[in-house]
């Protein structure tokens, strides 16, 4: 799709964006072609009310396709764009030139587009010679709390919209699971930040630690939840004998049936949710049946949010 065609197409979506008093329902945008093919029917039908963009993906040397950029710009102008960073590493103890550059790019990003709010991940994904990895949890200590608050303050110093953190799926053990809600609350308190509550991450911890949804949800500062993530995942078999498989947040399969009741419960318990975002990784929608499942999952999510009774 050429730039003009992409822009015209994105502009044509304008008639499908009615205001709503419930949370907006949207997609996490992926730049891959399989995601484009699967999601275009949803965009063209005006079913996508808000767009989440992992903006630091767009800083890579390959940039983003024109259709991706057109969508981002369209939702930005419509004030229906939210940002989600992946590589800042908010709980890395060492402050590095890489993070300084990340902040420079972040500042450029937020000056270029209208984000309603911005989030990053709990945990650290860079340290020593590693400039990138998957986010890993850290224990709640005076040191980790001070470091995390400092990083959040650095983000807040650059923006005028709310800044939040997403809960992690991965935990080294039960202690990480039990601490994360309190840790997030203490991290976010000085800047009045928000929690991006990923429900499949909660589901992973329910499966991996044999915990109930109530037990995990109640450990989080639910009054801070401003955004929900919904996705599928997969099971990882262990090479260790007699060890249960591990549920992982891989964003590459259908949403598990048990997640829908969790979404309903979260909507009941989180009074300030502004957006519910469906995530599916690019390059995982391999067949038409996958694309149909992708759209079916999104529509089920939308139906649940639409039918939920909100106090306001």
């Amino acid at each position, binding site marked *: 799709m050429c730039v003009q065609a992409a822009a015209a197409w994105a502009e044509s979506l304008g008639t499908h964006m009615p205001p709503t008093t419930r949370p907006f329902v949207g997609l996490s945008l992926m730049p891959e072609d399989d995601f484009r093919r699967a999601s275009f029917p949803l965009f063209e039908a005006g079913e996508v009310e808000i767009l989440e963009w992992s903006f*630091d*993906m767009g*800083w*890579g*040397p*390959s*940039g983003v396709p024109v259709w991706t950029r057109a969508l981002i710009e369209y939702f930005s102008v419509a004030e229906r764009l939210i940002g989600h960073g*992946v*590589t800042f590493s908010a709980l*890395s*103890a*060492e*402050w590095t030139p*890489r993070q300084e*550059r990340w902040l420079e*790019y972040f500042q*450029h990003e937020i000056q270029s587009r209208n984000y309603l709010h911005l989030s990053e*991940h709990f945990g*650290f*994904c860079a*340290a*020593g*010679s*590693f*400039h*990138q*990895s*998957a*986010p*890993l949890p*850290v*224990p709640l200590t*005076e*040191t*980790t709390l*001070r*470091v995390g608050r400092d990083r959040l303050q650095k983000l807040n110093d650059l923006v005028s919209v709310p800044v939040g953190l997403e809960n*992690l*799926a*991965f*935990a*080294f*053990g*039960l*202690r*990480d699971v039990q601490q994360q809600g309190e840790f997030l609350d203490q991290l976010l308190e000085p800047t009045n930040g928000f929690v991006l509550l*990923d429900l499949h991450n909660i589901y992973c911890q329910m499966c*991996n630690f044999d915990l109930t949804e109530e037990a995990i949800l109640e450990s989080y500062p639910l009054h801070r939840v401003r955004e929900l993530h919904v996705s599928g995942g997969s099971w*990882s078999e*262990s*090479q*260790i004998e007699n*060890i249960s498989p*591990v549920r*992982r*947040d*891989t*964003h590459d399969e259908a949403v598990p049936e048990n997640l829908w009741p969790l979404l309903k419960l979260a909507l009941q318990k989180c009074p300030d949710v502004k957006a519910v975002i469906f995530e599916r*990784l690019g*390059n995982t929608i391999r067949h038409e049946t996958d694309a149909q499942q992708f759209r079916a999952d999104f529509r089920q999510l939308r139906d649940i949010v639409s039918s939920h009774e909100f106090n306001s």
Partner: protein
Amino acid sequence: MNSTPDEIELANFQAALLDLLAQPISPEEIARRLREDEVFAPFRANSESFEPRFLEVAASLVKKWGRSDSSPDLEEDAPREAGTFPGYTTSRESEFPIK
């Protein structure tokens, strides 16, 4: 930015943990190193709660998504106008670490 001694201790722990998880060793060996290596000592009360099956997952995550200074596909700094964030790798997949 000046780091305090406890931040340096934490930074050393985090760097050593990523290095350890990136090595081609078993979860049992990772657990042994966490118990015995001096760099992990300040956080041993926490790392004793690490379960082998999750050390195994963490190791696979770091091997899959981790990029270090010695990674072969590390990009050189590129002009900002090109939309390039220095330190990024070239493949689309490796730009998006999942949890």
